[in-house]
């Protein structure tokens, strides 16, 4: 596919070209003046975010900046108090999480939320729930159609489990596998729903350097599948290593956005992360 080639090229382009492509590239996800309040606390304040097709975008910021809240609003877990979330031009307001994943946004959680007492294979099979539709009675009677769909689910699950490298743990309960593997399993479960946009909430937290590196390679390989990725990340190596576009958030507001290099040298970003220099007056 043409898009695929395009994606591959994007990864080796220079900064200027990258910016141009950002302008041309279709915006998949966009938040428009998004606001979310918890009581008196404004967690997200008029926040604009855009995620371009076929790219890895990152959302970074200090602890408590409201990054996860943005994710939760986008995936429908929280309701926005103001502003819009547009996915492929469609307003997601009022949609429930299970409807949003059907539209093509899959996510993982910061604290891994697997179905602990189910096997790895079952976890990934469950990920395909929104892409299957056999009902109660056909399941009770195990009609040929239902068996066929079930087989299809299993085959897809196998494909995804192999993709995240966990096929040998297929019959192991999710709670029993190693932490790094649990992270990958959660990504596998999200991928199983064949999403257009994959939202990862700190995928590298708790991983060692080797695992982080593998994760970077893995995420890059996902771009070949015509997937768009949005991630929250603390690990600067991961952010700089794979992002095409970085948005920086602090205290609910966007303070900077651009290519990783731009953002890295942005004084406001450094200030947000390291604190203000006392001698410099405002």
């Amino acid at each position, binding site marked *: 596919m043409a898009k695929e080639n395009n994606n591959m090229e994007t990864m080796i382009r220079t900064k200027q070209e990258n910016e141009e492509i950002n302008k041309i590239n279709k915006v998949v996800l966009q938040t428009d003046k998004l606001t979310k309040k918890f009581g008196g606390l404004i967690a997200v304040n008029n926040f604009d975010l855009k995620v371009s097709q076929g790219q890895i975008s990152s959302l970074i910021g200090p602890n408590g900046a409201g990054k996860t809240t943005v994710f939760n609003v986008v995936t429908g877990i929280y309701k926005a108090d103001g502003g819009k979330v547009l996915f492929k031009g469609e307003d997601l307001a009022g949609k429930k*999480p*299970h409807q949003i994943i059907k539209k093509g946004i899959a996510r993982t959680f910061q604290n891994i*939320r*697997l179905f602990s007492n189910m096997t790895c294979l079952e976890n990934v099979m*469950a990920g395909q729930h929104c892409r299957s539709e056999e009902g*109660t009675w056909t399941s009770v*009677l195990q009609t040929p159609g239902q068996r066929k769909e079930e087989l299809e689910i299993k085959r897809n699950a*196998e494909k995804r489990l192999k993709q995240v490298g966990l096929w040998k743990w297929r019959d192991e309960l999710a709670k029993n596998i190693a932490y790094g593997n649990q992270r990958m399993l959660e990504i596998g*479960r999200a991928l199983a729903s064949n999403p257009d946009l994959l939202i990862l909430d700190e995928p590298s937290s708790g991983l060692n350097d080797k695992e982080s590196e593998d994760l970077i390679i893995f995420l890059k390989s996902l771009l070949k599948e015509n997937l768009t990725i949005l991630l929250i990340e603390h690990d600067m190596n991961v952010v700089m290593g794979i992002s095409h576009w970085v948005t920086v958030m602090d205290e609910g507001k966007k303070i900077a956005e651009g290519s990783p290099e731009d953002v890295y040298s942005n004084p406001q970003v450094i200030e947000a992360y390291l604190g203000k220099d006392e001698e410099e007056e405002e």
Partner: protein
Amino acid sequence: MKLNKSIKEKDSIFKNWLIIIAVILFIILPFIINTYWVDVLFFFGVYALLGLSLNIVLGEVGLFDLGHMGFMAIGAYATAILNTTFGIPIIILLPISALAAGAFAWLVCSPIIHLRGDYLCIVTIGMGEIVRLTLNNNPFGITGGPNGVFGIDFPSLGSIFVIDNSTKFYYYIWLIVGLTIFGLVNLQRSRIGRAWNCIREDEVAAESTGIDVRSYKLLAFVLGAGLAGVAGNIYATKLMMVSPESFNFMESCMLFCIVLIGGMGSIPGVLIGAAAISLFPEFFRTFAQYRMLIFGAAMIVMMIFRPGGIWPRKRGAVKFESLLMKAGEENG
């Protein structure tokens, strides 16, 4: 694409020889034991059916339902009233009582389905008690108050085949239990059963995985209630009468124990739990007054040493090597 034919799915519990022996034993049993024990086994069947129905709600989805007897009462009274007042045959009332109980569950559970854990538990206790008290107070003079409704017919297919003795009732209940087990095992292995388990494991993740948590919880309640309604129908026709006292809170607790003892979400476990609840008092008639004491102690010991139940559901039986075209490309 050619499908790899070497799919080795050893997940059919029907292939297990233990189960075949158990089934044969159940078929020949009424010819060996006396009528009293056949009746005991009949009530074992009723408890098994009730346990299976509660297992959907409590075991599969993890919703605390301590008012399950309320659903059974709806089924039993629907059967009793429609049969004695309008003379509708019992066999037609079997699905009707299931529908009545299911509809009732849908009605009362819709507004409370979002409640979690203990809160849901308290509401269901209230619901069960309200059903019992309402029946006791004889609304519109149709439930017969504390005395209940008398003179319910036997289940029959016209006049050719009437289920009128203990042995026939025994086969009748176990046939229904068998069909239920078949349906529920299939359900457990479908996306529906998986969705239920996902909700039990983690509601937020289930919702984010694309499972409509609310609908699936309601579905579990309606199905569970429907099955309890079937149990109510059979119970009413066996006793030929129904009274509110059969559906008290203690009975709901017993059902709860069946699922907990057996193992949440485990069908063989529920059968064992039902056996423990219904057969145990028969074997220990002499200790009748210490029954609850022994029972309580047994529960505590169980919870400490086998918190998952006597026969917890075994997962991970899907041992197939590969379903994809290229076999042997295992990695990871």
